[in-house]
């Protein structure tokens, strides 16, 4: 007891002071003296003297925990005498320096020769081997292992009793013993990490004892998932062994082959996961992801994250064989059997909770191999034959909190800068370049030298939100000194008199200062994205990967229930699927998509259970589509279009067919669809066969679309399709914008070329490529297009744009997420993505909806809204103030589950006002990104 308390008090320093002056020989004499006294007492109570019962090391271990007595109790005074002596002896041992050339010091040599440690251990066994005894012994070793000046563990007479003690502590120790045991184990691992040669001894000693385990390791495993300090120490200790394994094949092999380390870790995750709350108590409607403040208050989640973090660390440091095994167990023992079903639970809340967990896990994991495991699960695993990814994408469109949480998950995924994720989400739909007019392929890589796209995006700023309209505190229209080079006259005069060329004049221009911040953010965002994407396998620039090579593969991969129709119509066309022999029933994810889309049907919220009835689903979708088309047509007639009659007609058709959206009225802006007829008709002849086929397809499609409720507009649809066929007939229609937009103007007068006469001019100029005749491509296109479904940019883009389309009805938080994700995507440097999202001059296929189209339609909705409400400007101003206050409160306190009070008080009627403000800010954000792309994407990055 004494020794234990003394050790615990750690009054060793005093002793050390006393010992410093003492010469080693004296120490040795003292030590021997003490030992002689101890031996006297030990022998007096030696059971061998009274009984003939031999206690062998291992035999006694078997008795651990039970109360073993030999020859009656040891008198208290004798026990404490031994303790006193031992205490002094241990200090002498600890303080002894190693001999010359690493030889044992005389005391240690004595300890080894006389087998002191083992005899002391047996002595303590002979007395009542209570928890107190164990603690005493554990602390004794803890002290000498941690503080001895010479390596003690190299010597079997020291190591063996230690191992015996450790194995006597296995089983189910009490918390006190556990804490001490783990501390000692941790200490031993530290020694191992510093001196791996001891490792061999640990293995050998284990073998001597007939145990094949790596005892230290096996003892630690039960504590892997323990919470609190004990768990942490155990995990730290295990990590030390893990990093040892990276160097030591034998340790790695032992752990991988002879221990349950990996399965325990992985199944432990499953166990901990099962104790997580299946439904989160969400404090506010705007909540969409688990922040640190949130999960810190959930002990079960903290514990799970600790273990996940441990897995992450193990994978980081361990030998590849352990890493691979662990990753496999996590995949097959946690993700597939536990997380996958959890993502498909029955209630929305449960699914939402799982999604929030998955998002948190992805944000907590940093080690590429572990991330890869999670991402493989998300991208490739099929649950009930549906990819997890498809399920997750389909949920983005849910009008409930599940949709918002799903959005937050995608924000995390996109923020990983992972090629595989981006490939599956978006790029694989863009690689074939089917989404754009063939002529546009060469535009993909082009950069916007003159900020044309930025200007077009900013031109969508609603008139009620223009910088000139807002009072000073909201828009800082600071006057900035904008220097200009001087006009020629003064400059030349300067040259002549040689009086220094100080011919710079400044002009004051009022600028929207907040735009500078957006530019700065855009610059940061794009640069880090460019840097991160250096590890990608391809530039995705419309040439690599080559579009033509990946036409077919995409078709094979992609479930064609999506392809059968343009994005928003996917649900409609899916209606015909069940009738087809090949697909007797639409896949689950299609059903889910259909369901969520249907739930979006404006104004009609319907209980989930109601969606069991497929017929009703189809009806609802069809109704929505018809109404939207009609709405679109009506509004387009009402709105005065600046374009020619033909053009507007075409636009109208394109939109009505393409995505049944309400954006049709934006005629001059929807450049993707402004296809001059005279050009389009030129090549119809060569493509008649194809046109016919398209016609048939469309007619077929049409008949099915109208069957439920839309018969009344059937004729109109047919007319639209016929227009569409005409435009599709001309593969080269894309060149049509040439006249209006200088960007598209490749013509060079021959005289100019002659005069210039610089061969080098043509090197590397993108403009030159424009001369290349695309007849070739046209042929190819029409050939391959036969088997091609209508162009589609993938479900994710589709779902994202449709959420954006509903911006005016969305809450502030949904809008922040949606626009945030789009801005994230826009910062990617891959030309395919950049051109799709930001190049407002790209001509896309009529069935492809672009970000710009959606923005343009939003602008129109806002203008309409503003014209009907007199108090709109005031509402805008107060919404701006409100958002400003929110911003500063967020900066002040960090993001928490609770929302700033102002936003809670918003009436529903004001949602659109907030949306308008956010829309305006989003335009600036996008324009800034577009501008930064024009100067960043092409510079080789220097730091």
């Amino acid at each position, binding site marked *: 007891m004494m020794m234990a308390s003394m050790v615990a008090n750690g009054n060793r320093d005093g002793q050390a002071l006393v010992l410093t002056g003492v010469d080693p020989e004296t120490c040795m004499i003292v030590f021997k003296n003490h030992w002689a006294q101890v031996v006297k007492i030990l022998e007096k109570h030696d059971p061998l003297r009274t009984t003939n019962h031999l206690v062998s090391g291992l035999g006694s271990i078997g008795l651990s925990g039970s109360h073993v007595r030999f020859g009656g109790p040891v008198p208290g005074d004798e026990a404490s005498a031994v303790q006193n002596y031992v205490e002094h002896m241990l200090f002498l041992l600890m303080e002894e320096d190693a001999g010359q050339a690493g030889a044992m010091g005389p005391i240690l040599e004595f300890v080894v020769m006389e087998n002191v440690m083992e005899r002391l251990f047996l002595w303590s066994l002979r007395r009542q081997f209570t928890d107190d005894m164990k603690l005493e012994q554990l602390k004794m070793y803890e002290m000498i292992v941690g503080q001895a000046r010479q390596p003690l563990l190299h010597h079997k007479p020291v190591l063996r009793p230690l191992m015996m003690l450790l194995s006597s502590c296995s089983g189910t120790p009490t918390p006190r013993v556990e804490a001490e045991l783990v501390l000692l184990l941790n200490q031993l691992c530290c020694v191992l990490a510093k001196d791996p040669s001891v490792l061999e001894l640990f293995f050998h000693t284990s073998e001597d004892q007939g145990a094949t385990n790596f005892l230290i390791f096996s003892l630690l495993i039960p504590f892997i998932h323990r919470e609190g300090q004990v768990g942490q120490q155990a995990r730290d200790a295990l990590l030390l062994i893990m990093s040892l394994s990276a160097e030591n094949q034998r340790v790695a092999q032992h752990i991988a082959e002879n221990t349950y380390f990996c399965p325990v870790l992985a199944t432990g995750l499953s166990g901990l996961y099962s104790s997580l709350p299946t439904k989160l108590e969400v404090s506010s409607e705007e909540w969409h992801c688990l922040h640190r403040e949130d999960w810190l208050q959930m002990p079960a989640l903290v514990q799970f994250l600790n273990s996940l973090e441990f897995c992450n660390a193990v994978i980081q440091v361990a030998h590849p064989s352990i890493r691979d095994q662990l990753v496999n167990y996590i995949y097959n023992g946690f993700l597939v059997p536990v997380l996958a079903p959890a993502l498909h639970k029955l209630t929305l809340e449960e699914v939402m909770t799982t999604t929030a967990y998955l998002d948190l896990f992805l944000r907590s994991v940093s080690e590429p191999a572990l991330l890869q495991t999670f991402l493989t699960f998300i991208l490739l695993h099929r649950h009930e034959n549906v990819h997890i990814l498809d399920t997750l994408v389909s949920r983005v469109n849910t009008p409930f909190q599940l949709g918002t949480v799903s959005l937050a998950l995608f924000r995390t995924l996109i923020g990983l800068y992972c090629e595989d994720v981006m490939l599956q989400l978006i790029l694989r739909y863009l690689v074939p370049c089917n989404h754009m007019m063939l002529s546009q392929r060469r535009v993909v890589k082009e*950069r916007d030298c003159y900020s044309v796209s930025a200007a077009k995006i900013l031109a969508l700023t609603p008139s009620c939100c223009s910088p000139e309209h807002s009072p000073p505190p909201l828009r800082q229209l600071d006057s900035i000194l904008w220097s200009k080079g001087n006009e020629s006259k003064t400059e030349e005069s300067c040259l002549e008199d040689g009086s220094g060329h100080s011919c710079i004049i400044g002009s004051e221009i009022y600028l929207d200062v907040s735009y500078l911040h957006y530019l700065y953010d855009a610059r940061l965002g794009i640069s880090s994205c460019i840097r991160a994407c250096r590890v990608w396998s391809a530039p995705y620039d419309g040439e690599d990967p080559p579009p033509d090579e990946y036409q077919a593969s995409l078709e094979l991969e992609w479930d064609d229930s999506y392809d059968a129709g343009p994005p928003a119509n996917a649900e409609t066309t899916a209606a015909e699927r069940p009738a087809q022999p090949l697909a007797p029933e639409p896949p689950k994810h299609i059903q889910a998509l259909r369901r969520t889309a249907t739930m979006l049907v404006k104004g009609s919220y319907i209980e989930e259970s109601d969606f069991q009835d497929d017929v009703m689903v189809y009806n609802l979708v069809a109704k929505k589509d018809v109404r939207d088309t009609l709405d679109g047509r009506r509004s387009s007639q009402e709105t005065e279009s600046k374009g020619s009659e033909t053009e507007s007609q075409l636009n109208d058709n394109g939109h009505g067919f393409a995505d049944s959206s309400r954006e049709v009225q934006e005629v001059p802006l929807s450049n993707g669809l402004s296809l001059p007829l005279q050009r389009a008709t030129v090549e119809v002849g060569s493509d008649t066969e194809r046109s016919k086929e398209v016609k048939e397809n469309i007619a077929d499609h049409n008949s099915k679309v109208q069957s439920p409720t839309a018969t009344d507009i059937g004729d109109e649809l047919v007319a639209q399709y016929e227009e569409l066929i005409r435009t599709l007939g001309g593969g080269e229609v894309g060149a049509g914008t040439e006249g209006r937009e200088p960007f598209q103007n490749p013509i060079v007068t021959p005289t100019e070329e002659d005069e210039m006469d610089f061969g080098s001019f043509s090197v590397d100029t993108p403009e030159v490529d424009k001369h290349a005749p695309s007849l070739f491509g046209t042929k190819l296109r029409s050939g391959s297009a036969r088997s091609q479904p209508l162009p589609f940019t993938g479900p994710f883009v589709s779902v994202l744009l449709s959420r954006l389309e509903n911006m005016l009805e969305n809450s502030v938080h949904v809008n922040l997420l949606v626009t945030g994700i789009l801005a994230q995507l826009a910062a990617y440097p891959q030309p395919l993505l950049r051109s799709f999202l930001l190049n407002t001059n790209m001509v896309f296929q009529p069935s492809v909806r672009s970000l710009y189209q959606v923005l343009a339609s939003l602008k129109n909705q806002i203008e309409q809204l503003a014209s009907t409400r007199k108090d709109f400007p005031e509402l805008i101003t107060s919404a701006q103030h409100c958002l400003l206050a929110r911003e500063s409160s967020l900066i002040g306190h960090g993001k928490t589950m609770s929302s700033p009070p102002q936003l809670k008080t918003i009436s529903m009627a004001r949602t659109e006002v907030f949306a308008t403000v956010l829309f305006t800010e989003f335009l600036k954000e996008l324009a800034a990104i577009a501008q930064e792309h024009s100067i960043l994407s092409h510079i080789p990055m220097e730091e």
Partner: protein
Amino acid sequence: INPYDYEEQSVQQIAEQQQRASPSRPSFGKKQLPTIPKNTAPITKPASPATTTQSINGTHASYGPFYLEYSLLAEFTLVIKQKLPGIYVQPSYKSALMWFGVIFIRHGLYQDGVFKFTVYIPDNYPDGECPRVVFDIPVFHPLVDPVSGELDVRRAFTKWRRNHNHIWQVLMYARTVFYKINTMEPLNPEAAVLYDKDVQLFKSKVVESVKLCNSHLFDQPKIDDPYAISFSPWNPAVHDEAKERMFTHKRRPEDHHKGLQVSGLSWVKPGSTQPFSKDENSQQS
């Protein structure tokens, strides 16, 4: 030492300078609105209907300068990308519309010539006239005005076409005139006549002119601007270290990126569009 290494390097340096020169702003969260002083009551001044917001081309006037600035920045990045041999330019500190430049002539009649010049870009760029190139010292050349030093650029770019014409082409042209002499409609008739009639005399005049230009190389820049190009004699204390840095930087360009934490992920095998198609990832799926 390959002089081209230096050149390439300096262009990069210039690019870096350019980047550094760009405004450094504090980082803000998304959807940042400018901050207002606290306790300010919302000012609800009714918007005056008189101020129409859309200016020409449907863009807001207040963004115009941004478009110009970025157009010029884009032009500058194009110049860097072209790696024009022997030509360096650097936008001035005070205005993006004025660039300082220098041309090194390596061979031909003007061999060893080092000509400093200034590029003036019209402020309605890219819709205005072509940029002007004015040499600091009027070089003896048929196409260079003997008084103003201005190079006749307009003959090559009769009409400046956005998207088709770029400033690097002007710089390229400025270099080419020294290798391929054109005497048609000269700005310096004397030089033109001499070139056509008495090449020897022309040559000696050129040598004289080159000498003159080079003798003024170390002069203070004609235009007082922090980014004006200035030459100084080799000073080991200053230049040795800079040179050393350039060359070590060049040898290990990858090192700069290793320490950066921002790293993307990819398990896509090059040439494939399948996720997790790299060979090392066979354990799953």
